């Protein structure tokens, strides 16, 4: 045996220089907004890691964030503005200069602003600058604006904001450090990426029980102490059975509910009358409760009043009323909500439902957390301790993406309220700037529009009843996506998934320009991408013109949608621009205090690209929009950075809340600070306000918190925010459906509005389940998000695509065996609208009546500058091909496939059948290969990325 001498070896350098410079900024590999450190060596990006000081991720970084180098260097990056030269969809463009691009966009937009501003439909995708984009739409004068929330999470946002003044994910978080019991419903695993993982790590280390309710056992569910493989779309029924059990066993916190919720508010009982189901109010308009001592109604907020929560009462004017809790008890104690009645439908044994209810009750009432911390409530009462029911809940996409998602999410909030598990130690907590008043207001703008005139309010808002809807005298929609109409009264985020189809059909009217940002609407962001791309390229045979005359698209990357644009405005990567994560939009606040963040350019673009926000500000100035120009008509802002520091939405309130005032010491409110961005950069590109310990819990009724929040400009006044078990705005829509009031739904929608707008949470089957075609489609079909991918973005990433370059259809092993389907077989998945061919993988950890796949792995051949035969397009597939944004017509009327309250796209309602296909190894449909867009490089076959500065010496 020969032995080599260690001395012959090359010395290992254990202390090589890592970087010349470390720049901190905010990640954008998904929507989670973690703080990152970008290590630069010789001008190249050597390494990106988590910023240990950052409140969101505390130093950790997920797989997506860690692959930022490859996103930044993606060969799919657009390089210069493009003007279409061929037919739409052919992908033929010429490169043009920015001046020409901006002039053209301005000309198109100026024409429509001067005639009918509604003809601009402006929809942005996974945008994090909605306070700017919404303001642009408002100043332009079009109500036709929304971002992607309508097909993502509006059910969660609307249910939360109308129930508890906050919402899951964006506006709240579990108390990871204290909770003893954590219930998680249907959560996609790509985001809220690091905070959930950090939190689950803490839970597991402390031995808290983690119950995951999800039809699929991947990722988070894999480490749950208990996995409930529920049937898709039945979470609400499961939750209301838990509610039934808690009521049946009197395990509810009535003290909490009368102090902090509206359990005792009197609801008028006058069937058929115009005020039936509304709150009884005093002359001052304040809700009334029944004072048991005085035997009379009294202002429900009166401290110390001995209130009734059950029993009919007679108001002095002779009307009958009963407390909201009485209605809750009557409804959910009904045997139809008993575990035995729902078990089969949910696919969860009744005994498990009873046990979980008992576990929740035990933790909530026997294992309470008491913190030795005095605080003062809104009524001025001092409490010596902070005490809470340490049961936390979190829910997201699996609840959100169903047509019963709004009411299901309301049901989860009801469950939280019944046990007092909101913003208490160990429960779900608000992320400041939440809670906000319920609903937060203001109303949506856009009831009237006029040439060259801004809207009176932001296009998206919060209706309180029929009078706030955007409908005409006949009750028909005023917005192109029909948001805030009787088809979707609480469409707080709009219905982006309907924009193309409605614009194409001219329903309710035609638009001139569709302006899209960062939304892959010709592919994975549309239900039925085949139809979406057909409609984008469709011409009116009578005129030969495109039905949607102009399409402007802004994105950083060569997605499928680029091919369908007339004008392409290339965006920068996230490492090349100023950006803002604002309290006016979707901030990074936590339960510990409000926070916001910026991105700074850490490298210069090597292409002729500009950030979308900068482009939008330039177009706004060229159009002369109020606020975008000064008194002389000159651009008010030099660029986006200038806007971030100097724009004021209200006096003293700007995009960034930190380092305000001339000396940079004001928080929330304060004069613009010309050195604000420098201060952010010096602070790691974020700002955080730490709430003192007495403000950390019970924020909805914590006097010191509410007063502080008001002073910072987070909320309009410091009144207690009363949790709404019973939702009066919903009842107002319902009364309209029953023939009351000036604004009523069209007759065809009355029954639907009446049923869906129940003021107490209800469960109804997903709409697809009720279609005649459902019987022929025995499986539910849903998607999950792989943790290492963010929608369509990951496939252009040389590293991430090695983890997921193709996707499979997963199904239950036993079920597949009964159908003679084997692992790796090719199958057809067919729905009422289409079919897709894909390959099967078998597993045990899935609800037996459910099939699923990873979201957005499938790509159109040639898109994203991938090779035409890349596995993403050859074997990867989109489940979207079997979806539709429409339900079958009813009485000749188009019906959107959405939640009837919020308009949320019902992605997960889909029903399919699965049959064996021929075994040719290729997916179908496989649309034609897209040409490589002009200017894009031939991607390298071999990648030898090395930013160490020592690569050449090492190469052999």
């Amino acid at each position, binding site marked *: 045996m020969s032995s080599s001498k260690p001395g012959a070896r*090359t010395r290992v350098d*254990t202390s090589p220089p890592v970087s010349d410079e470390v720049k901190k900024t905010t990640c954008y590999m998904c929507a989670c907004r973690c703080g990152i450190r970008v290590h630069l060596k010789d001008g190249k990006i050597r390494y990106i890691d988590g910023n240990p000081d950052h409140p969101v991720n505390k130093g950790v970084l997920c797989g997506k964030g860690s692959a930022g180098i490859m996103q930044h260097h993606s060969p799919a990056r657009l390089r210069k503005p493009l003007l279409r030269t061929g037919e739409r969809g052919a992908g033929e463009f010429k490169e043009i200069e920015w001046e020409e691009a901006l002039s053209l966009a301005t000309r198109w937009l100026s024409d429509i602003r001067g005639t009918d501003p509604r003809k601009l439909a402006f929809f942005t995708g996974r945008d994090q600058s909605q306070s700017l984009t919404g303001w642009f739409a408002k100043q332009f004068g079009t109500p036709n604006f929304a971002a992607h929330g309508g097909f993502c999470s509006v059910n969660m946002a609307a249910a939360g904001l109308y129930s508890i003044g906050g919402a899951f994910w964006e506006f709240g978080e579990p108390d990871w450090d204290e909770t003893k019991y954590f219930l998680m419903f249907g959560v996609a695993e790509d985001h809220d990426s690091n905070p959930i993982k950090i939190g689950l790590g803490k839970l597991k280390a402390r031995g808290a*029980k983690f119950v995951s309710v999800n039809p699929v056992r991947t990722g988070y569910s894999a480490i749950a102490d208990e996995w409930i493989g529920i049937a898709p779309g039945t979470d609400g029924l499961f939750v209301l059975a838990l509610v039934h059990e808690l009521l049946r066993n009197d395990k509810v916190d009535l003290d909490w509910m009368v102090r902090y919720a509206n359990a005792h508010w009197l609801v008028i009982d006058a069937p058929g009358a115009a005020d039936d189901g509304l709150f009884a109010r005093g002359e001052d308009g304040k809700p009334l409760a029944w004072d048991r001592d005085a035997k009379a109604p009294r202002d429900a907020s009166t401290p110390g009043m001995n209130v009734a929560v059950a029993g009919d009462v007679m108001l002095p004017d002779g009307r009958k009323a009963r407390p909201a809790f009485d209605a809750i008890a009557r409804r959910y104690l009904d045997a139809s909500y008993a575990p035995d009645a729902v078990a089969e439908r949910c696919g969860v044994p009744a005994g498990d439902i*009873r046990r979980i209810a008992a576990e929740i009750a035990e933790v909530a009432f026997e294992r309470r957390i008491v913190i030795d911390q005095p605080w003062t409530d809104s009524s001025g009462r001092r409490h010596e301790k902070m005490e809470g029911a340490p049961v936390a809940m979190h829910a997201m996409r699996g609840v959100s993406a169903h047509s019963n998602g709004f009411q299901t999410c309301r049901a989860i909030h009801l469950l939280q309220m019944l046990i007092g598990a909101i913003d208490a130690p160990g429960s779900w907590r608000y992320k400041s700037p939440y809670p906000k008043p319920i609903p937060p207001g203001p109303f949506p703008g856009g009831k009237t529009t006029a040439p060259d005139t801004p809207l009176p309010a932001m296009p998206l808002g919060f209706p309180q009843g029929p009078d706030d809807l955007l409908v005409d005298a006949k009750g028909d929609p005023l917005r192109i996506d029909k948001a805030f109409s009787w088809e979707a009264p609480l469409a707080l985020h709009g219905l982006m998934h309907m924009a193309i189809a409605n614009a194409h059909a001219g329903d309710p009217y035609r638009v001139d320009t569709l302006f899209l940002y960062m939304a892959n609407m010709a592919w994975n962001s549309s239900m039925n991408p085949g139809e979406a791309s057909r409609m984008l390229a469709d011409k009116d045979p009578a005129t030969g013109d495109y039905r949607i005359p102009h399409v402007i698209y802004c994105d950083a990357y060569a997605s499928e949608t680029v091919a369908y644009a007339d004008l392409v405005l290339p965006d920068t990567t996230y490492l090349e621009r100023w950006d803002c994560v604002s309290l006016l939009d979707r901030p990074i606040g936590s339960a510990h205090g409000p926070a916001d963040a910026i991105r700074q350019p850490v490298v210069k673009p090597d292409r002729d690209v500009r950030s979308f926000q900068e482009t939008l500000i330039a177009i706004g100035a060229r159009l002369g929009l109020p606020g975008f120009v000064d008194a002389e008509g000159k651009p008010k802002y030099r660029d986006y950075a200038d806007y971030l520091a100097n724009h004021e939405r209200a006096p003293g309130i700007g995009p960034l809340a930190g380092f305000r005032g001339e000396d940079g010491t004001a928080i929330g409110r304060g004069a613009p600070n010309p050195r604000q961005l420098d201060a952010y950069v010096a602070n790691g590109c974020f700002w955080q306000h730490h709430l003192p310990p007495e403000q950390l819990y019970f924020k909805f009724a914590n006097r010191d918190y509410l007063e502080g929040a008001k002073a910072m400009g987070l909320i309009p006044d410091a009144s207690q925010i009363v949790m709404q078990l019973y939702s009066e705005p919903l009842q107002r829509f319902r009364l309209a459906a029953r023939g009351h009031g000036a604004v009523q739904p069209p007759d065809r929608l009355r029954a639907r509005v009446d049923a869906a707008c129940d003021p107490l949470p209800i469960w109804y089957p997903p709409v697809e389940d009720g279609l005649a075609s459902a019987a022929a489609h025995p499986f539910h079909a849903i998607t999950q998000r792989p943790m290492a991918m963010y929608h369509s973005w990951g496939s252009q990433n040389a590293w991430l695509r090695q983890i997921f370059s193709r996707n499979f259809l997963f199904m239950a092993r036993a079920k597949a065996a009964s159908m003679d389907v084997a692992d790796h077989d090719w199958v057809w998945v067919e729905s009422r609208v289409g079919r897709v061919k894909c390959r099967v993988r078998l597993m045990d950890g899935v609800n037996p009546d459910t099939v699923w796949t990873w979201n957005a792995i499938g790509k159109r051949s040639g898109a994203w500058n991938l090779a035409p035969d890349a596995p993403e397009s050859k074997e990867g597939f989109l489940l979207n091909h079997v979806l539709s944004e429409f339900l079958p017509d009813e009485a000749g009327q188009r019906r959107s496939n959405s939640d009837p309250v919020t308009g949320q796209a019902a992605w997960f309602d889909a029903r399919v059948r699965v049959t064996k296909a021929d075994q040719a190894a290729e997916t179908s449909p496989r649309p034609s290969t897209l040409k490589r867009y002009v200017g894009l490089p031939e991607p390298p076959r071999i990648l030898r*990325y090395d930013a160490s500065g020592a*690569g050449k010496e090492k190469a052999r």
Partner: protein
Amino acid sequence: MTSLPDRIPGARKLGLVIDLDTCVGCHACAVNCKEWNASGHSAPLTDRDAYHEAPDGVWFNRIHSYEAGEGDNCRTVHFPRSCLHCETPACVTVCPTGASYKRAEDGIVLVDASMCIGCKLCSWACPYGAREFDVDQGVMKKCTLCVDRIYNENLPERDRVPACVATCPTHARHFGDLGDPESDVSKLVAARGGFALMPELGYAPVNRYLPPRKPAKTSATPAPKAAPDVAGALLRWIDRALSR
């Protein structure tokens, strides 16, 4: 063939402890490893067919997700796999040139690229599949335990841990001296019943895996099944004294 170093008394046995109870299979460790090491000691970690038909690159750390067990005991497992820095690694002793070696001072198994002839004997010898051949460069590569991080004086002290450990969002990865029974990692292994992978093969892996904890249980007993007494419940609540 290459000899193993003589054991230095008291020398450290650096390695990883990976918690299968909390790993959610997110690939953060794998990608962050790739990112650090792309420009690290063994740079580059070449990617072939980067944007083409069969993407395949060099990764020091790979995550396998699969189901194990039957019926109620069936579990989804996320299993991160990387070099275990064995005490008696066959990948070293099999190396004909001395390129593959184990460091005496800390036990890290490394490859000296300048001596590697790309014969792949080491990858055949390693039963754990932890070796990664860089076809483009013609040399074998592998986990270095971030030897260019853990001692790196150009990094702040808190960053001197392997990239996979620093980045893990669920804190499922731990790094330290497994030769010192008093180290945090040794205590963690002892407390949680950490185990070595396939010790019967005799290579004495240093890395340890922590098994899933027993599922958390509560002592709650469900109320017996009964028809709800709606009227009775309402009567009870009507009489409840509640102070706003």
